[in-house]
């Protein structure tokens, strides 16, 4: 595995450089190497060689990051569980992966039903960092992440070593994005969230330093404090972060930042421009990619002056990266014409082998298509997109956010776009389909604010859209509910609309 050899080289070549800053304490690559070697020896001595899927409790410490690398160079996968998630749900995950061994740096582990390796209390080291011989096992699993499933039980997404290598190859091929061992990078993600893979993997490969967000801090202000006081150079975030910082944009002017990557949600034109003004020396990347396709599948290089392509106010997702194929299809998985909206499907070496033990779901989410005499396997993202004449892909909405109102197809993001355009208050506005007691969908508009007069907004919407697209219900909600990954929880939001 080339990327693992390169991680080894990077760790050895950058011994005196810092790898992590956690709660203002710095750790060097040399410290990191020592911890990896200790955990590696414990894995070799304790874990049965046939056991591949190893649990990892994601504490915010050097041991947890070292555990990922130690497992990888031993050819094993990490199955991360968040210590703040209900234990029951974490047990469910380990049961479904048949995990027997758990690496846990906590002083006292709550995983007594499993064989626990306490990664913070190890003494003896393995002799080296060389990855084991991978020939024949390139398609072994590197990690499995669980995402919430439509039926309530989490869906497991396994990602192989080859998948990760393909991600690294694609990013390496991108001339606009190059990290180096002087970079200071934000790592704001919980390690059970797939976006974290790029925020630890790329800094490690480049010898950069990662700055984490300690528990108990006010995330939004802590991120700003890090940018300011540590002069961070590389930011990777979800758009909701800048929504919260928006009232303070006039005070933000950070010249140290050279890259800012967004992902995990729609990035809106208006806020992207304002944020870009806060970071005068920064390139902004609007990344796209689902967990099922190893984090990133492509990006749009946003620039407030030259690259502002958007659809309904949402910045374009651009083009697929190296070796990735984008295909926009109709309900029969047939390609649609340029400019037509359909479901975006992804093919190429970053595609997951399939949901963990979920054949039913796999039949729905993957299909094979013959192209130039080759069979290409595609993943159906559930995201509606269109391709424009220039070959850029534009995000239209979720296929499950497209609703039928009195027989008409309605795109919820379009309603949101028009409502936001006219709103004087720059607040979150979400359109939702709510079912009345007749089982019909009606439109609701949730506004994250104290109550205010919406007459103007509604007049505007009526002037822009057919009447069936204008919401019938409005609710003001002081704070929108969010999922653990910072996305707005629409399902929870719908509960505010009791229309019957």
């Amino acid at each position, binding site marked *: 595995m080339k990327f693992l050899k390169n991680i080894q080289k990077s760790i050895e070549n950058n011994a005196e450089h810092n790898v992590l800053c956690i709660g203002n304490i710095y750790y060097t690559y040399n410290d990191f190497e020592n911890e990896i070697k200790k955990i590696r020896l414990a894995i070799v001595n304790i874990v049965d060689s046939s056991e591949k899927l190893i649990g990892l409790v994601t504490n915010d410490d050097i041991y947890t990051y070292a555990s990922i690398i130690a497992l990888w160079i031993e050819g094993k996968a990490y199955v991360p569980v968040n210590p703040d998630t209900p234990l029951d749900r974490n047990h469910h995950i380990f049961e479904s992966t048949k995990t027997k061994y758990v690496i846990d740096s906590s002083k006292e582990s709550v995983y007594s039903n499993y064989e626990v390796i306490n990664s913070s209390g190890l003494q003896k080291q393995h002799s080296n960092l060389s990855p084991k011989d991978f020939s024949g096992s390139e398609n072994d699993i590197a990690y499995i992440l669980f995402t919430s499933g439509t039926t309530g039980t989490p869906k497991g997404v396994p990602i192989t070593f080859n998948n990760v290598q393909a991600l690294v190859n694609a990013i390496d091929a991108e001339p606009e994005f190059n990290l180096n061992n002087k970079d200071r990078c934000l790592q704001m993600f919980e390690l059970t969230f797939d976006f974290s893979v790029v925020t630890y993997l790329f800094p490690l490969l480049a010898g950069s330093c990662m700055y984490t967000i300690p528990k*108990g*801090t*006010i*995330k*939004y*202000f*802590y991120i*700003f*404090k890090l940018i*300011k006081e540590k002069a961070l150079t590389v930011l990777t975030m979800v758009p909701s972060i800048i929504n*919260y910082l928006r*009232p*303070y944009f006039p*005070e*933000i002017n950070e010249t140290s930042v050279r890259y800012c990557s967004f992902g995990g949600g729609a990035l809106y034109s208006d806020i992207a421009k304002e944020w870009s003004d806060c970071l005068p020396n920064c390139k902004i990347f609007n990344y796209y990619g689902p967990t099922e396709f190893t984090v990133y599948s492509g990006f749009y290089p946003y620039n407030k002056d030259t690259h502002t392509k958007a659809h309904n106010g949402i910045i374009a997702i651009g083009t697929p990266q190296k070796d990735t194929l984008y295909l926009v299809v109709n309900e029969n998985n047939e390609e649609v014409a340029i400019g037509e909206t359909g479901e975006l499907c992804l093919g190429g070496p970053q595609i997951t082998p399939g949901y963990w033990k979920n054949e039913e779901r796999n039949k729905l989410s993957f299909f094979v298509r013959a192209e130039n005499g080759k069979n290409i396997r595609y993943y159906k993202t559930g995201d509606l997109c269109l391709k424009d004449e220039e070959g850029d892909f534009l995000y239209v909405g979720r296929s499950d956010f497209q609703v039928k109102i009195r027989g008409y197809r309605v795109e919820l993001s379009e309603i949101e776009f028009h409502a936001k355009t006219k709103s004087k208050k720059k607040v979150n506005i979400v359109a939702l389909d709510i079912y009345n007691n007749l089982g019909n969908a009606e439109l609701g508009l949730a506004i994250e604010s104290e109550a205010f007069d919406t007459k103007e907004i509604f007049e505007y919407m009526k002037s822009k859209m057919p009447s069936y697209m204008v919401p019938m219900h409005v609710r003001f909600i*002081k*704070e929108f509910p*969010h999922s653990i990954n910072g996305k707005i929880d629409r399902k929870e939001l719908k509960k505010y609309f009791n229309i019957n």
Partner: protein
Amino acid sequence: MNREEILEKVTAAFSNILEHNNFQLKDETTADDVDGWESITHMMIISEIEKTFSIKFKLMDLMNMNSVGDLLNTIESELLIN
């Protein structure tokens, strides 16, 4: 407005947002000591306090605010400027 009066209004803002009053705010109180006081509710509490006192915090002050004492000091100095 003296510090006690400020604390009283701040306490009201906290219970308004957190929807409970199972806490006693003191200078040394931090987010760890109060149920429900975390990143997102903090942003709401800050905006509630700005409204209550008709002040606007500076980002530099907010990023170094680690306790209720820091919060009260910042409100006091903002009120002085006004």
